[in-house]
């Protein structure tokens, strides 16, 4: 049982690799597009990534219309990054007000040592 699952997973992984490594070739003859040469991932993956990112943006409070145009501005690899790890990405925001007291003490010391740069009043 276990080995058949392993085999199933293995074939799925292999299939993914194979699909991912097949270069996109136009079905019709004619001009080869810049993207056909520059983007080495199969298009189908990119389309799925983008749909995934759009849904995630909406879950994070972005309107449908904004989410669509935001996804359209991403490159394939950016869409992939977002699809894979949006939850773990640092989101630049820095607002010092919410820092807890214990953390405050530690950061005050590290600020004074010049290791961090959290509080305006520690500036030298």
């Amino acid at each position: 049982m276990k080995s058949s699952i392993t085999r199933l997973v293995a074939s799925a992984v292999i299939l993914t690799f194979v699909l991912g490594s097949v270069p996109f070739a136009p079905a019709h003859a004619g001009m080869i597009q810049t993207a056909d040469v520059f983007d080495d991932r199969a298009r189908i993956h990119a389309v799925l990534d983008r749909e995934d990112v759009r849904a995630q943006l909406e879950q994070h409070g972005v309107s449908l219309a904004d989410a669509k145009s935001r996804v359209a501005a991403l490159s394939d690899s950016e869409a992939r990054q977002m699809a894979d790890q949006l939850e773990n990405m640092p989101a630049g925001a820095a607002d010092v007000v919410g820092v807890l007291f214990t953390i405050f003490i530690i950061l005050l010391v590290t600020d004074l040592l010049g290791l961090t740069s959290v509080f305006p009043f520690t500036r030298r």
Partner: protein
Amino acid sequence: MKIAGALTALLLLNGCAAAPDLRDTRSASAPSHALLDAVPFHPQTDYQCGPAALAMALQASGADASVETLIPQVFLPGREGSVQPEMTAAPRRHGRISYPVGGELSNLLEQIDAGHPVIVLQNLSLPIYPLWHYAVVVGYDLDAGALILHSGTEARRRVPLGTFDKTWARGKRWAMVALPPEELPAGIGPLAALAAIHDFERVAGPAATLPAWVTATERWPDASNGWFARGNAHYATGDRDAAHAAFTAAVHADAAHAPAWINLGTLYEELGAPERARRALETAAAIDGPWQAVATDALARLRTDPAPAPLE
């Protein structure tokens, strides 16, 4: 016990706290201080340092992009912040190309020397309680050992180089510039530049991107992919002569660039020169790789299609 651990961690951190001296790594003629006066400042409100940093960099490049416009383009309410891929993507919607900047302090300084403000990601705090923050590097003063940033609610904040370097390292030294299509950042390599330009073209289209391909092929005449992409942009905007010249330059730079040979062949066919088309496609079909089948198909089609009336 916890306190002892924290103190040990602090001591360890302090062990690598020496401020980097950049003067050794820079040429003697390089300036010791610089400030980009013209970069506008927008104080951040709430958690919106991402849109504010982008507005400063984009406006400095001559784009008309306000903080209010950028908030719905990069701010993620659910994360109360903005993530890097979207920071990179948003300038494309304002006609600006985002380029990555290398992870050395000297890379930041060379952008300033070239007149380009740099958006950086910092973790102002420690990894256990991260405070992620986007700021814009607008200058430096090496005599005072400081970097000058538009950051948060403070314009031209002077941050000691050593402190900045640590907060930047905790943001994995992420940095970018956003430039008009006819400009390239200092110190970038052809691979990274061509990829960035291509990402822009997908959003902004070939006509807006053409100046970038022209600049890139001038800077890296040996980069065959640059000529290939430039040829496609010329072709897409209806300039077949320029496309022909660019594809020719691509195969001069790399005789094994099969896609450039195929496009050259297709172009010759359209221009009514089937003999030249055949030679170009045969060259492509003789190059091992994924394009061989495409070239062979195009050749077969060329043989069976009735020849168009020749122009020559």
